């Protein structure tokens, strides 16, 4: 039975989990393509937070060398590596978002909607038409 201190002590993980699940839920549940991208962003951001909180050392300061390069061993520094990694991940995230939005623009041009169910209906109709034409040409073999 974890006590309250344990729960609070892992606050960053709780927040990460809640944020991540919220994002994932939006991606799955929302029919609007843009909202899906927003959900995806939340989801990714949660992961960024997770990484950054990993690098935090209690009482640690920013990992920057003093100007005189003399390091005081009593000073604790936070781990810089996760931050650096997340810089890369943020760039990837932005690229993904912009590509996703660009695709939505093109989808809007072609389908004249960005609602998933309407797109699905258009595509189902397309398949029906295809099957009707090409199925008959197959002589019933399709």
């Amino acid at each position: 039975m974890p006590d309250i201190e344990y729960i609070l002590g892992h606050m960053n993980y709780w927040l990460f989990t809640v944020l991540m699940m919220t994002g994932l839920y939006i991606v799955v549940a929302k029919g609007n393509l843009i909202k899906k991208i927003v959900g995806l962003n939340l989801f990714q951001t949660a992961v960024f937070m997770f990484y950054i909180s990993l690098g935090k050392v209690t009482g640690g300061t920013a990992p920057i060398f003093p100007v005189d390069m003399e390091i005081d061993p009593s000073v604790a520094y936070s781990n810089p590596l996760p931050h650096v990694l997340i810089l890369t991940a943020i760039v990837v995230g932005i690229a993904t978002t912009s590509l996703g939005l660009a695709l939505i623009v093109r989808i809007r041009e072609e389908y004249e909607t960005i609602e998933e169910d309407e797109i699905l209906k258009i595509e189902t109709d397309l398949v029906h038409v295809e099957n009707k034409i090409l199925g008959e040409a197959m002589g019933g073999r399709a």
Partner: protein
Amino acid sequence: MATEHVHVARTLMDHLPVLVVLVPFLAAPLTVLLGSQRLAWPIAFVSSLVSFLISIKLLMQVIDGGVISYHIGGWAPPLGIEYRIDAANAFVLLLVSAIGTIVMPYTVQSIKSEISERHHTLFYTMYLLCFTGLLGVVATGDAFNVFVFLEISSLSTYVLVAMGAKADKRALTAAYDYLIMGTIGATFFVIGIGFLYAGTGTLNMADIAAHISTNGADRTIETAFAFIVVGMGLKVAIYPLHLWLPNAYTYAPSAVTSFLAATATKVAIYVLLRFMFSVFQPDFLFEINALRWIMIPLALVAMFAASLIAVFQSDLKRMLAYSSIAQIGYILLGIGLLSATGLSGAIVHLFNHGITKAALFMGVGALVLRSGSSFYARIEGMGKVMPWTSFAIVIAGLSLIGVPGTAGFISKWVLVQAALEQGWWPIALAVVASSLLAIIYVWRVIEVLYMAQPADPTRREAPLSMLIPLWIMALSTIWFGLDTDMTMSAARAAADGLLNGFSIGGTSVGH
């Protein structure tokens, strides 16, 4: 048996592990900067050819069990990024770069009809980026680097798939769905790496492995394992996570599909293998025996369900996409057997299925070029008007079934042998039974191609620039079905290397 060459940068030859990735990576922006449609293809072709030659050279160096460790910028691992070439990834590098190079001449005519004119230059840029990403994922020995390269290849793949929109607007939604699924997968993967980092304090794969083997696995590492397997499972299209694949393969331009089908999922499988066997190591896998009881059933379901769906398709391209899901099932089965034979079966099938599917999708592209669609109704009787294309499809189709004398047979043989070695009769029978479904779906295509009158007898054979790559692939399915010296010895070396983990080379890391 293995010796590790610790990198001391002197000559160009020493830089091969990074050059294989760097050449296409630098060529990609070059095509955009020059902005010339005429120059884009030669640049892309030459750079992929260079990567291909380097891959051959690298495989030669490591096929006897050696390992090349290359330190980026001279920073020694585990702090610096390490590129680590052993038999397993040299083999996959060769597959990726060979397919990438051979598909190149094919693209010229193929994209003319399937991609709008103004995108041609960008097509080559994206192609090169995707190529770079795939090679990078394979070459690197750094866990986070895998994620970065994975995203480079994925993002360019989404664009490439979306370029099919000229022929069918559904390419856009296919690309969008792929983007959502792919990003979720990649993010899962990166969460897994985060947990690994939290558990071990390092990102170098060899170092993580060393840490796990000395300190054992705790719950953080088990969580990492779960996230990585699920994340990669999405990219691999393991059965219930395969939903993005059929549409993406169907609506992408044919040249893209030929390239992706042969490489993208295969690279993802490689990553899965690398993490499962090298990073987490077999002891860990045996400990969580559940993996075997999850992976094998899923593989079996994929082999039968996807094959059955393939039987009922009426579009050749879509049929092949479902067949890919089924064939991935074979590979997972080989992995799930957790034995040296099973693993080498999986690796050799990864290669054999790669060349087989590349040939088939190239054939489809040639048919689409002349008939405008890959629906069975549209390609009826094409055996008469396009005999070369159709016959190459037949050869590759036979390899898909696993007829003796073709590459597909070799991998099925090894898989059945692996199952029998462990006395798993039902598995062996399942492999052959699923081949029977393959006979049905391949034979439907052959009947469509040959047993009907062509709708338009005036259609011509595909141009030589498509036929030659197609036939190189088709003939190599036969060649690798007879002469298995290269493929099997590489697969065995790779399997041994993976099963031994990094334990051999692990000591010299950090020079």
